[in-house]
């Protein structure tokens, strides 16, 4: 009974158990090789592709307006074809067909890969294939028969060069924690898994610039940086599994965006391999570099459809000594909004997170996650807001935060609140917010929507959806209020096309009307490839297609995703 080391015992007994949740997939890779293929060789392909591409964009498309996009068109045109092959329950999954342009994998291919990568990095094990073919939510399932695990950039380059010449489709995969079916094969694509490329290459303590391979797990980078006195500019629920290459390729947002901005700002350079095997060395460690087009941005958020990110350089902020977390209860959504305005003014530079969840989300977490309890047992509240401050001086930060909180109570923006007194309590509060996706998975099937909507109208969608679906589903809303990012989740006992047809396209149309985005931080993936017109104009998508054709003329990289299927297959 006398615990020799009670600190550890206590830690063990009370440790939180997150890991695994949201966002992101893609890849990374490692070492040498940065030969640049001549720009002319590139040009030829570019020209032919431009021609090709004009044919690809169907002329009928022009009759479809921005608000009433491709979906109907595709339905009428493709549903009739009948698709015995379909794999997914998400949007449009039912109408994807394997593109005839891709070759089938054969034994010679496997042999070739074994020569390039060594036998143990060419995986055909059934269990591993099942895991790699299935996404985290068990919503999308591919039928790939091969996982390749390159150990360096050169190997990635050789893989892609070969696949490109053979016409083999490839899906890059990192931690496979994505939520839009972007990180799993749709059919029999070869999976290129970057997990073995997990070295930290360099860290500059003066500038805080980290260079690492794409397969580094976010949480491992975080603990490495923690020892150096720095933090990652992004943090998300899936940190225990997701990889930095996937984070960059999906432009993952997460919990610190309100403070440190998006990865388009923090990523200073990437090394990426193009479909034809060309290695692009853009691994700069400079904050300023105005020389020509900033092409690294093409790889941030393009979900592996333009190239495979193999290395990343990231600007990391210093770890500040004082972190405070408060969980507040609000009676209605307008209070949450006013609270956000106040927080921006009164907390200013120390505000590092402003998250909200509704009472339905709170109920889910407390019901399904072990050890989670509502800190306000005595009364019911409609909304909860989690505020985190990060600063350099504990006493002044605390003073500021307390003054803000007490002021908000007096103004009745907040009906109750708790302020974490130690790190354990702070972790517990975060767990209530970060644990929602996990709780949703435990509750059954879930339709997830990740939307950017002007803050003012953000919660109206949840209410409308609730009245639309009635008792058939549990509709919950939570998200990054500070970024205008709503996570709308519809929890149902099992996936059901009838319910899906009530949600989509309504949710996209609604968002589009508000000039919002149908994907704030999760990406497009397979789930929303055909819905991209709700958020992007025809001209924009056309340019995206041209870029895709230029960089991946055979469309072997992550096919059926990001861009509408009619255009890319």
């Amino acid at each position, binding site marked *: *009974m006398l615990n020799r080391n*009670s600190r550890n015992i*206590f830690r063990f007994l009370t440790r939180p158990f997150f890991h695994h949740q949201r966002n992101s997939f893609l890849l990374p890779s490692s070492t040498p090789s940065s030969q640049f293929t001549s720009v002319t060789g590139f040009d030829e392909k570019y020209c032919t592709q431009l021609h090709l591409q004009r044919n690809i964009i169907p002329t009928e498309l022009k009759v479809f307006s921005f608000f009433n996009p491709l979906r109907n068109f595709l339905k009428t045109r493709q549903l009739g074809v009948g698709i015995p092959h379909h794999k997914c329950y998400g949007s449009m999954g039912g109408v994807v067909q394997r593109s005839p342009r891709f070759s089938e994998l054969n034994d010679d291919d496997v042999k070739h890969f074994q020569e390039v990568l060594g036998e143990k990095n060419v995986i055909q094990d059934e269990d591993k294939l099942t895991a790699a073919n299935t996404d985290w939510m068990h919503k999308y399932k591919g039928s790939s028969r091969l996982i390749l695990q390159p150990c360096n950039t050169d190997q990635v380059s050789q893989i892609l060069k070969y696949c490109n010449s053979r016409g083999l489709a490839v899906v890059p995969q990192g931690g496979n924690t994505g939520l839009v079916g972007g990180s799993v094969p749709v059919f029999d694509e070869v999976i290129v898994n970057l997990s073995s490329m997990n070295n930290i290459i360099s860290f500059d303590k003066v500038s805080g610039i980290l260079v690492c391979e794409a397969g580094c797990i976010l949480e491992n980078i975080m603990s490495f940086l923690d020892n150096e006195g720095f933090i990652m500019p992004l943090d998300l629920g899936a940190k225990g599994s997701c990889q930095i290459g996937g984070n960059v390729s999906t432009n993952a947002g997460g919990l610190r965006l309100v403070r440190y901005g998006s990865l388009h700002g923090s990523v200073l350079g990437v090394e990426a391999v193009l479909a034809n095997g060309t290695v692009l060395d853009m691994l700069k460690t400079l904050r300023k570099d105005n020389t020509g087009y900033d092409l690294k941005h093409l790889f941030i958020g393009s979900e592996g459809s333009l190239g495979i990110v193999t290395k990343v350089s990231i600007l990391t902020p210093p770890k500040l000594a004082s972190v405070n977390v408060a969980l507040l209860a609000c009676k209605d959504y307008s209070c949450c909004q006013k609270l956000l305005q106040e927080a921006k003014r009164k907390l200013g530079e120390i505000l590092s997170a402003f998250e909200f969840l509704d009472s339905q989300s709170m109920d889910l977490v407390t019901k399904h996650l072990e050890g989670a309890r509502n800190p306000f047992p005595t009364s019911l509240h409609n909304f909860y807001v989690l505020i985190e401050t990060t600063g350099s001086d504990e006493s002044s930060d605390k003073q500021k935060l307390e003054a803000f909180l*007490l002021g908000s*109570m007096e103004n009745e923006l907040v009906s*109750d609140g*708790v*302020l974490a007194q130690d*790190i354990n309590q702070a972790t517990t509060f975060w767990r209530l917010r970060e644990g929602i996706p996990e709780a949703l998975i435990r509750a059954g099937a879930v339709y997830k929507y990740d939307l950017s909507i002007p803050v003012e109208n953000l919660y109206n969608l949840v209410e409308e959806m609730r009245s639309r679906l009635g008792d058939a589903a549990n509709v919950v809303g939570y998200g990054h209020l500070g970024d205008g990012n709503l996570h709308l989740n519809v929890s149902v006992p099992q996936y059901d096309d009838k319910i899906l047809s009530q949600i989509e396209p309504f949710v996209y149309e609604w968002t589009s009307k508000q000039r919002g985005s149908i994907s704030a931080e999760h990406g497009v993936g397979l789930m929303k490839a055909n819905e991209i017109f709700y958020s992007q104009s025809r001209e924009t998508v056309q340019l995206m297609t041209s870029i895709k054709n230029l960089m991946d003329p055979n469309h072997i990289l992550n096919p059926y995703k990001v861009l509408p299927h009619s255009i890319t297959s």
Partner: protein
Amino acid sequence: MKIMVAVKRVIDYAVKIRVKPDKTGVVTQNVKMSMNPFCEIALEEALRIRESGLASEVVAVSMGPSQCIDTLRTGLAMGADRGIHVEANYSLYPLSVAKILKKLVEIEKPRLLILGKQAIDDDCNQTGQMIAGLLNWPQGTFASKVVLDKEKQVATVDREVDDGIETVCLNLPAVITTDLRLNQPRYATLPNIMKAKSKPIKKFTPEELNVEIKSDLEIVEVTEPPKRKSGVIVSSVDELIDKLKHEANVI
């Protein structure tokens, strides 16, 4: 009835501990400090007893540098009625703490003294037992359940012992030290944080209490536990057997 609770300010249990290079102790500068988790449990138990009507007042005591006031404020925000701070800018070991507590008990005259079973920084697990000895009060240590009988003036305490639960009956006044499973401490709510600001904290020094602080023990060296070696994944059965034979020397 009055309850006195001792609360200690320690390095937050979630912080990674670093040993000073000269091995004289651990780094405490710029490190997050919080209330010892077992003390939180002790305070929570006192508050629950008061809320059930069996006690009228809860007094929280903390000893150490001026920042202990923060720890006391946390205690007051949880619900303690007032605080006592014994300011000492030097290390206090269990016997000294017990002696100071004895003086405070003589001043405050509580019927029940609740402490955490140990602090997570030094892991001494001595103070509760020492103060019970100095006061000649009965003690119920490692409590996982406490039931008070106001009429009979006894406390029934379930103790976590190696082979299960031992139940003891103590005549009040008594000393109780708390184990992890006794309760789940509450959070400090905003209204209570606000109220805590106006609650009184009385200040003493060991000299004022006529306690002579003698260092009865000396820390020779503080070292880190040996680092756990990371595992390796072997690629074949042969390699495993080879490693077991030649590296681990177990077969």
